[in-house]
């Protein structure tokens, strides 16, 4: 029983100890490479490059769309989220405890049945055409 407890604890800690380098988009896992030499990186934003070479900024903000909001209060409390903005009855902008935890929290939410999607509030370049 004790070992099971520690296994669960270890799994939980590992979730937040190291930021995963992927996110979910349109149901697919998209891998990210952390950019360590970008001029744009700040204390508030980490920059990554995805598989297509697109540069994405990740901060402590995250967008989540729920299927149902029945468990919303519980999720907010257990994941230490702060509601910044409600875009619609089911789409929310949250602040996470830190930018280092945003990908992990979004990925864990994405796998829940009551979540339509969850991903960082990515910072992206809008290219004029």
């Amino acid at each position, binding site marked *: 029983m004790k070992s099971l407890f520690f296994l669960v604890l270890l799994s939980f800690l590992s979730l937040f100890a190291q930021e995963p380098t992927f996110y979910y*988009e349109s149901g697919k896992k998209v891998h990210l490479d952390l950019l360590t030499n970008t001029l744009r990186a700040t204390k508030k934003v980490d920059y990554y490059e995805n598989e297509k070479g697109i540069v994405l900024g990740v901060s402590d903000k995250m*967008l989540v769309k729920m299927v149902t909001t029945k468990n919303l209060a519980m999720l907010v409390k257990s994941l230490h989220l702060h509601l910044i903005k409600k875009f619609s009855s089911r789409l929310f902008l949250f602040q996470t405890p830190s930018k280092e935890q945003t990908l992990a929290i979004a990925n864990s939410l994405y796998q829940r049945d009551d979540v339509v999607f969850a991903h960082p509030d990515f910072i992206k370049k809008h*290219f004029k*055409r």
Partner: protein
Amino acid sequence: MKKILISFGCITTLILTGCGSSEDTQKNETNTTKHTVVSLNEPYVEQQWYIRKNTNFYETYEINPDAHIHIGDIQKTYSGKTIKVAVIDNGLDMNHRDLYKALIASYDSATKTTNVNHTDFNEYHGTAVTGIIAARNNNIGMLGIAYNVSLIFLKYKDEMTDSETIELFNKAESFGADIINCSWGTYDVSDAVKDKIVDLSKHGRNGKGTLIVFASGNDDYNLDDYNDESNIPEVISVGATDKENLRAYYSNYGTNLDLVAPGGYDLALPTLDVTGAAGENSGDYIFYDGDFQGTSAAAPVVSGVLALLLEKNPNLTHDEVISLLKTKSDQIGNVPYDEHRFNPYYGYGKINVSKLFETN
């Protein structure tokens, strides 16, 4: 057919008083018995090769006779009046004389204010895009395709969060936009932004669906390899043609490209420039030999045409408009189109305004 013409400056009111004999008049009479017919005498209008053919200009610059959008005299009857077009772009010359009284609402994502003027006045993109749609018919400068449209301008930041992008689409919705023109893209649209765009396309405009037009991009990419905004099926994705009436070499393509429109190569699309010394040149306009070309220019051509179409038939739904574009566009280019009238480089073909207006 009797016509009574009453002139007010450059605007002439035409009241139809008898049975029609001209083809145009017969078509128009089915919808209304009173139209406003205007002269289209803008000083630089002959340069606007993408709207209609000026024989001298076409011969001088060896332009394919079909390179324009076959608008005919439709602008003499329809001008986008009653239609609201939102342009999401990098800034607008709010005081441009050729946009006089066009702007009805605005919002700047960076400052959260209504001041959407260019921050860097050498950046003319938003003004140029807007001019193609909305430049006024006022005997100065150039002619917008929908020159009486009500303009909403939403200024984006080059680097922007997904939530800020959603906010701009929310603003367009709250301002009552019928059409949203986006001459930009990220090549990586997030689920939340896609969700907003799809929702607006399906449920905006009081349930008829907002028409969201995106430029396909200028990198000669197959968009099937990218998760781009213009690759969202509900979006009207626009590629570019050139003066040869062929796909411009740079125009992105793929299975979700809907249609093509003049975007230029060699010859630019004349439009508005930022007033004065700043901008693309030292004047107030960008000319045929200027630097405004690309799918950024092709998208507002389509947005302007759609404003004319919605003015004529405001009850058209999003799906009905898409269906019309698919069946009424010209199958140009020396390429085969499939049984659905589709080719990945041309979509469903090049926009043809006269055909769009045949029955609608």
